[in-house]
Structures are given as structure tokens and as C-alpha cells.
């Protein structure tokens, strides 16, 4: 068996793959957080719960209604995004004039409610979700075995991230969005319906979380707590990347996933904490984050 730095290559590439998978979810979730933060100035603590809701919706669609994974990829984000729209209209919209910390507290409360309700209903144990038939099996790459579904998750998440980047940075709609981030009052004066844009942006960010949840369902089990600890890691990812740039969120997400994976190989004791340690170091060197600018 071949080795690199005394580590079997099989284990190394295996952990690298897991790192890339985790990184896909970090990227998708931190992207959603960054999009929401850009326009609403709110850190959406409910993001982890909405990711979990996405996974549960996919689970119900499959087991109650026989709706396949592929349709779930479309339907779950729309359904969960719609609940996001309701939350924005009925609650978040009342807070924009107040200190932004209230938005954090409100979304934290909502996360507790949602996670508590699901835990009451389904307990803490995970529910299995089958990998869709088209993506079962895997490829033998010679140096490692690559399950098809995992390859799909990495490719799909990259595509979604880059698509979002393209829409925001390169289209007219994205230009409105960026302008409203800079100066909402002025954009409104030009006749753009900014409140509706804010609502839809929140809905879109939530839908991204739900999409990540559907993709995560076959890999991690579907459980009420699946988003609770993840969201804290994603917060650290956001702090490291800084929220200024969309591309920054994507790069940081994937990069940290890989670093975490490598830590599991070389120093497993630190694998849970490495992202937080990196966050501390980055804050000491560059308080605004790697890609951020202080506002």
C-alpha cells in the first residue's frame, strides 16, 4: 500500500473526499447566509433549522408521496423558501429599524422552536434516506473509490454556488440587488420595489439552505439536530471568509472543508476544532476576514 507522510493514500483521499463534501455544504450554507446578510443585515440563525427542514421535506416527499429525490431538489427549496417568505413578512420586517442583534435573537428563537417541534415529533435518532437509483454505486479511480452520489453533491453544489455568483454579479437582477445592498433608499427612489426584493432575497437564501438539506439527506441521516451544530461551524466559515464577497464565501467553504478533512488524517483530535482555531488566527491577522471589507 502506498503512503504519503506515513498516511495510507486510501485514507488520505477518503478524508479529502469527506472534506470536499462537508465543504460543499459549508459553501452552500455560508453563501445563503451571505446573500441574506447583504440585503437584510441579519444573520439568519434559523439557517441550520431550515437546512434540516429541507432534508425532512425530501424525506416526507419520498416516503409519504413517493416523490423522487430529483423532484425533491426542486420542491423542498420552494416549500421551505415559502415559509421563509412568511417569516420575513410577519416577523423580520418589523425589526429592520432596530439594532441588528434583534434579528439574530429572533432567528435564534425560531431555530429553537423548529428544532424543538421536530425533535418532539421524531426524536433525536436519524431517519435514513435512500440514495437515488441513478446515483448508486461508484467509480474506481485507481487510487480511491468514488461513490457516484458524493461526486454529484460536489459538482451540484459547485454549480449552484457559481450560478448564484453569476446571477448576483453578472445580471441585471443581481445589479439591482447589489445596488440595494449599497443604498436601499436610493434604489427605491428609482422605482424598484425594495421591500419585495428583501422578502424574495430572504426566501432565496432559505431555499438555498433547504437545497443543501435535500442534498445532505442521503449522506448524513435526516435528524432534527442535523443543522444545529453545523450552523455554528458555518458561522465560523463566514467570519473567516468575511461577508463582502460571494466568491469568497464559496472558496472559504470548500477550502475549510478540505482543511478539516486533512486534519482528520494528520491530527484527528483537532478535527472538530480546527475551523475555530483558523477563525481565531484569521481574526488576529485580518479582522475583516480573508475576503471581507470592514463596513
Amino acid at each position, binding site marked *: 500500500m502506498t503512503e504519503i507522510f506515513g498516511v495510507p493514500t486510501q485514507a488520505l483521499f477518503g478524508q479529502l473526499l469527506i472534506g470536499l463534501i462537508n465543504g460543499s455544504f459549508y459553501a452552500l450554507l455560508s453563501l445563503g447566509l451571505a446573500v441574506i*446578510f447583504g440585503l437584510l*443585515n*441579519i*444573520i439568519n440563525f434559523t439557517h441550520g433549522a431550515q437546512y434540516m427542514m429541507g432534508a425532512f421535506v425530501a424525506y416526507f416527499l419520498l416516503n409519504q408521496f413517493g416523490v423522487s429525490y430529483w423532484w425533491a431538489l426542486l420542491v423542498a427549496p420552494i416549500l421551505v423558501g415559502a415559509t421563509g417568505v412568511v417569516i420575513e413578512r410577519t*416577523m423580520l420586517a*418589523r*425589526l429592520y429599524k*432596530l439594532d*441588528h*442583534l*434583534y434579528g*439574530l*435573537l*429572533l432567528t*435564534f*428563537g*425560531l*431555530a*429553537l*422552536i*423548529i*428544532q*424543538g*417541534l421536530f*425533535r*418532539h415529533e421524531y426524536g433525536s435518532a436519524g431517519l435514513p434516506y435512500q440514495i437515488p437509483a441513478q446515483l448508486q454505486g461508484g467509480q474506481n479511480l485507481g487510487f480511491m473509490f468514488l461513490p457516484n452520489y458524493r461526486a454529484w453533491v460536489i459538482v451540484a453544489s459547485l454549480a449552484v454556488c457559481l450560478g448564484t455568483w453569476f446571477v448576483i454579479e453578472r445580471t441585471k437582477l443581481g445589479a439591482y440587488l447589489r445596488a440595494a445592498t449599497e443604498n436601499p433608499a436610493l434604489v427605491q427612489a428609482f422605482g424598484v420595489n425594495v421591500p419585495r426584493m428583501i422578502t424574495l432575497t430572504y426566501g432565496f437564501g432559505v431555499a438555498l439552505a433547504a437545497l443543501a438539506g435535500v442534498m445532505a439527506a442521503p449522506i448524513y441521516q435526516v435528524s432534527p439536530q442535523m443543522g444545529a*451544530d453545523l450552523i*455554528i*461551524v458555518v*458561522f*465560523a466559515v*463566514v*467570519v473567516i471568509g468575511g461577508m463582502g464577497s460571494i466568491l469568497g464565501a464559496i472558496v472559504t467553504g470548500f477550502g475549510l472543508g478540505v482543511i478539516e478533512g486533512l486534519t482528520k488524517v494528520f491530527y484527528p*483530535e483537532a478535527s*472538530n*476544532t480546527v*475551523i*475555530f*482555531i483558523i*477563525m*481565531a488566527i484569521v*481574526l*488576529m491577522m485580518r*479582522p475583516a476576514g480573508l475576503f471581507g471589507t470592514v463596513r
Partner: protein
Amino acid sequence: MMHQRIALLAMVAFFVLAPAVIYPLFLMKVMCFALFACAFNLLIGYGGLLSFGHAMFFGFAGYVSAHAAKVWGFNPEFAILGAVGAAALLGLAAGLIAIRRQGIYFAMITLALAQMVYFFCLQAPFTGGEDGIQAVPRGMLFGFIDLRQVFNMYALVLAVFLGGFLLIARVIHSPFGQVLKAIRENEPRALSLGYDTDRYKLLAFVLSAALAGLAGGTKSLVFQLASLTDVHWSMSGEVVLMTLVGGLGTVLGPVVGALVIVAMANYLAQLGAWVTVVQGIIFVICVLTFRRGIVGELGHWLKKPL
């Protein structure tokens, strides 16, 4: 000042007389959490810094005092002092990192740092992992006061709580506290007036961490247990909730909030996940319609700050 004194006397009278009718262990729990919430409130209510990771000081200090009392055989007063020192050091390290950003970022950074401490406590050998440190001896205070007797333990907790509470009240009304308030209201202006705002914020952070540690260290002696629950992020959320319910930036608010939330948790304990749901609902209601909290609302109604 008159009405504040009356309110303070009422609080002292309550905690002195209540054990006659209310289960003392419950009251001791309330006092530990009340001190914890007061320490947290010093930071958010007067410094404008929302820490979402205060459980790291509370819980870690709990481990330190439990370990010192059980493994090293420290007297309770030294176990608690050790806990305060450990929490202050941790507060210094976390504060140096966290005060580099403000507002929402500050909250996220403290949350992430607390999660790091949580994983450390989960893996470090001295914390006992999932089991925690159990059967911690309460010991003999100053070598001759037996804390196994409820009366003595209660007196110690009351003294610790009142001492911490009065210290915080003193800090709030001191020149240092006034500068903190100035920083909360307008940091650039405080900076331009010549105050080194970072140092003030760091000092407030360390002080708040040390007092949270005092609460946590005492709690693990009272319950003879230090566990992961107290370092978990949900504990950080709980202390935010207590302060919010009682009233952000009021001296007595966190005490009232702690009483309400601990009582609620006690009554709803058998309902399992519903406790989380109810806490979440209270969060949402407080943020949407009840931002002053119980004491803040009362003070507003009396037209006097409490």
C-alpha cells in the same frame, strides 16, 4: 436611587426568606443563574456587546472547580477562586480575539469560540467526557464550615450571589461603567474623546467572564456535578433569554429573568423537547413585542429606571 434601593432590598429579603417556603436547591440554582445572567448583562446591557458564547466561561469554570475540589482536594473557597481565575484567563484569550469585531460578528465569534471550548471539554481527559465530573465533594468552607448542610451551602451561595451582584452594580455606576455606556452609544465618539475603547471592552469582557465563572464554579459545588450541558451553546442561548426576559440593561432584570426561566424549566422538565419550543416562543415574543423585558417594562411604567 431610592426606588432602586427598595427594589434591591426586596430582592435580598426574597432570597433570605424564601428558603422557608421554597425548595432551597431550586433557589440556589436560581441564584447561580442570576449571577451568570448579571455577568452577561454587564456586557450586553452596558457595553452593547452580545456574547453568544458565555456558556464557555460558566461551564468551563464549573469543570475547574469540580476538578479542583474532587481530584486535588481543594477547599471550596479555593476551588471557586480557581474557577474564577480560569474563567478570567479564558475571557482574556477569547476577548482579545472577539473584540476585534463588533455587533453581529462579535456574537458569531463568541459562539464559535464557545463551541471550540465545548469540543475541548468533550475530549479533554479531566472533564470525564459525556459523564462529566460526578459526586463532587462540597467540602468544608475555610476548613470548618460543613457545606453538606443545606443551610451553610445556601448561605455561601447567597453571599457569592450578592457579592457578585453588588460588584456589578458598583461597576455599572462607576466612571468605568459610564465609559462603557458611552462606547455602547457611540464608539467612534468615545474613541475621539481619548478613551482606548478596546481596552475598556476587553476589561469588561474579562470581568464578565470571571463573574460568569464565579457562578459556574459555585453551581458545580451546589449540584456536585459538572457536565457538558453547561458548556453547550444552548446554555449560552439560555442566559441570553434570561436577560432578555428580565430586561436588557437593567440592574435587576437578569435576576428576575433567571427566576422565571429556571422556574419554567423546572415545571416543564417532564415535557422534554417542549421546553426548547417554549423557550423559542418566548424569544420570539420578547424580540417582537416585549423588548424592554419584565423589569424594563415595570421601570417604564413607574417612569424610573430599575
